[in-house]
């Protein structure tokens, strides 16, 4: 079945969108016309209305525009992989691990490579957690080790081996020129070289990551903005159990 859709502004299928951008030219009637033509001729939008033109500085001009598009997309054909574990909550996760796995789940987490930010991994690990949702360190059935930021890949993997981790959680914050992807791939490559890729679940999270991108980067799962510790804990409870059928009771 094909279901083509386009943006909704004021009426079904009108295709209206709002845009803003800057051009490297001084503000002038010619600049406004340049912006309009750019949207209409170069980008193919209809009904172009440049609603604001302002000098962001002497040499740069900022525009706000409303346009409509003729383009549409077949919604039915779009598929995206998602982490579909339900959120069992703090108590639910602990009960499941106790009942179904019967041992602690061990996780190590950190931010490898260039990035010095610990805010992401702290939100998932720290006792206090994030947005009222307790962090993994608080879960009695998790042993959670937060290794901080700027970890060397080998140190990260060594710690995971030493602690007999089930999962490695990677946080990526800085995304300028896709440095996060480079660092994320680097860890997986290193794990493969050391024959460790299949020993651990590799999970990645960050403000500019999705499950789909995580899979593309060679990870088992990815968590994007708004993820709570209990989302990650629920996924781990199910996935570790799935991978350890023998120890399950």
């Amino acid at each position: 079945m094909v279901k083509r859709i386009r943006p909704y502004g004021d009426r079904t299928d009108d295709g209206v969108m709002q845009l803003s951008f800057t051009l490297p030219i001084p503000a002038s009637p010619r600049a406004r016309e340049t912006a309009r033509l750019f949207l209409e001729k170069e980008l193919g939008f209809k009904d172009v209305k440049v609603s604001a033109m302002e000098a962001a500085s002497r040499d740069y001009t900022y525009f706000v525009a409303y346009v409509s598009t003729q383009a549409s997309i077949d919604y039915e054909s779009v598929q995206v992989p998602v982490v579909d574990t339900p959120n069992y909550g703090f108590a639910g996760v602990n009960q499941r691990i106790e009942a179904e796995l019967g041992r602690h789940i061990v996780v190590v987490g950190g931010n490898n490579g260039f990035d010095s930010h610990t805010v992401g991994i702290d939100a998932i690990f720290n006792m206090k957690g994030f947005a009222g949702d307790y962090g993994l360190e608080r879960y009695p059935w998790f042993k959670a080790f937060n290794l901080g930021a700027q970890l060397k890949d080998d140190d990260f993997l060594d710690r995971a081996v030493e602690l007999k981790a089930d999962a490695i959680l990677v946080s990526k914050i800085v995304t300028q020129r896709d440095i996060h992807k480079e660092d994320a791939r680097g860890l997986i490559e290193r794990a493969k070289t050391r024959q460790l890729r299949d020993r651990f679940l590799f999970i990645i999270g960050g403000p500019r990551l999705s499950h789909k991108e995580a899979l593309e980067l060679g990870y088992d799962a990815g968590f994007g903005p708004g993820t709570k510790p209990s989302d990650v804990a629920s996924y781990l409870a199910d996935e570790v159990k799935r991978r350890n059928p023998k120890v399950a009771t």
Partner: protein
Amino acid sequence: MATLPIDDAKVARCRVLARQIAQQVQDYIDHHTTVAVERTVLRLLGVDGVGEHGAPLSNLLVDVMHKQGVLGRGAAYWLGRAFRLGVDNPKDIALTLPKLLVNGAKDLPELTPQEEAEVCEDVMRMARGAVEELTRRREQRKDLRRQLHIGDNPQRYVIVATGNIHEDAIQARAAAQAGAQIIAVIRSTAQSLLDYVPHGATTEGFGGTYATQENFRIMREALDDESRQLGRYIQLTNYSSGLCMPEIAFMAAHERLDMLLNDSMYGILFRDINMCRTLVDQYFSRRIIAFSGIIINTGEDNYLTTADAVDKGHTVLSSQFINEALAHLAGCKDMQLGLGHAHEINPWVEDSWLMELSSAQLIRQVFPNHPIKFMPPTKHMTGDIFWSHVYDAMFNLATVATGQTIQLAGVMTEAMHTPLMMDRYAALKSVNYIFNAAKHLGEEIEFKRGGRIEKRAMHVVDTALTDLEHVAEVGLMAAIGEGVFADTRRTVKGGKGFDGVVERDPDYFNPFLGLLEPAEEPY
């Protein structure tokens, strides 16, 4: 101005306690030096440039001294010994010094007391020259600043962070034209943990641009030019933090920067830098800052990103008292202390904005002569730029209503990417509108006696006082170990850079400790 009835006696007690806390660590500081402090001494004495493989000469020299176990005497002393042997340019010294210091310098001939005095006097002469140069640059900044004026408070502070210093200059000029009064160049994410300062102009960075002396010079030159065009002096900020805190303070003083992010505890808590290292480094960096008239920006705003902004709001205040006391011990004046705080309470909590207003007003009153710096929401920002813009607008209103000195403009793309030109422009337009539209709001309102805003402030003061009583009792290092600040625990010998801390010898020589007098008029 609308004021809150804050108990002066409690505030005074906080300051007494903070002074005790600072004094305890000062005893430690006065008996130690670090590789970063000694590199700074060398840079002050003109050791610039890089050796093989691009390593700064100051690093090469200090590493040799440290390896030979003689750093406790002070790098300046060994430099003086090299001079005495007729080696006087830094590159030759870098080649010669490893030979001189072999076996812990035991092969070097002993000098008579008279000769020893001459060695030190040679270095002192150079050091006085260096201090005169810094004085000249400080006065040059003062002249420009007075001639062109900096504009009204709250001062509009924005960041640029392209990774390329030349693009940064383009964006800084654009921001200045849109009303910005202060430009901060954000550093590349990895730099705080580098134990050296990169050299030269840089065009590649991640999440920011490397802080180098040449980058400082390029940006200050661009802003001097823009300041003259606009008839308004644009201030420049960078980071004196991480493992090269004092070195960057020197570079900033030399290149006429106006402000530095500089905090006595930030590196310990948020970058896991060793606490002994940071405490010693912050002192020498602040001696340079006190001398050169730079305004520091402290990092208490960060506390509320890891700890809860409602429950732990008081830790901002207690840390500000400690930062203030430590900065005073280094000679900084109140007018140089841009104590930081932030608008980070969960915005969906009922009356969250009233609590923001309360703490902003409280900090304004407790630090009346300080150029306090209010930081925008980050933790609860999302990619919904339209809502974020509204949230920032409320922050702008709190800023102007409470008369903050410096405000980092909130940009609606926080949590997404470093500000693009149009994002920054939209943010400044909102700031310009609200600062003007509500310019005298603080003079026109009063806080209800016994109301929510007042009670919240009283609670924060009481809790901060309890905190400080505790920290004074156990000591700052132990308190950090307990996780008093930012819910983060650190150990005395843990973290990065502890191996760069050295006990001073009884005859430790650092000519600048005596020469760097605090500026009478910083700016």
